[in-house]
């Protein structure tokens, strides 16, 4: 079955530091991979997505992610975080259902706190 694992429930980084949020997926086919962000009391916003091509995909607000097929990973990175990046981040894989159409399978989420 398809699954996504985000091993870090909470991450705290200093403002201006670099960031990596980890994501590993399990899916037998060629995955669509996504990172979403949820700011406090808001809905989900798409940061970036990957299907094929360059394994490093650029997203909004300076975020990028790298697809490493051999490791089944899709880690999210940012070179320099800002306090406004404090939020919950979700990794997701688009998986084919038994009815042959797609659904999103989410990881547990990583809560990011950016401190002064």
């Amino acid at each position: 079955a398809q699954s996504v694992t985000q091993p870090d429930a909470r991450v705290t980084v200093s403002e201006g530091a670099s960031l990596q949020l980890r994501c590993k997926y399990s899916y037998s086919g060629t995955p669509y991979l996504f990172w979403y962000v949820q700011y406090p009391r808001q809905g989900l916003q798409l940061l970036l997505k990957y299907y094929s091509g360059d394994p490093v995909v650029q997203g909004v607000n300076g975020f990028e992610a790298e697809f490493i097929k051999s490791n089944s990973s899709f880690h999210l990175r940012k070179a320099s975080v800002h306090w406004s990046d404090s939020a919950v981040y979700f990794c997701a894989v688009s998986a084919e259902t038994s009815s042959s159409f797609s659904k999103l399978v989410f990881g547990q989420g990583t809560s990011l706190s950016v401190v002064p």
Partner: protein
Amino acid sequence: EAAVTQSPRNKVTVTGGNVTLSCRQTNSHNYMYWYRQDTGHGLRLIHYSYGAGNLQIGDVPDGYKATRTTQEDFFLLLELASPSQTSLYFCASSDGGGSDYTFGSGTRLLVI
């Protein structure tokens, strides 16, 4: 502008109560989904649909019914609400191809 609109934004009900959460999409998408979000679990799929009158069971369906009345409208029904159903509920639509999903702003449900 294409969108997914959920109502209400917040809902409080008592144990055993009857609740309907509404979702409307203007994306011309055939596929719609209901998820619940809980800390430590991420978002989990409750029910989904690929067209009016169609319903598919998701990963955590117990205690929930759903109905897709039109291409645009997808409803989630809790006929005997329980405190374990206190959660943040998201509706989404997609083109079914796997690459494009649009989420609503969520409905926060409290069952007391």
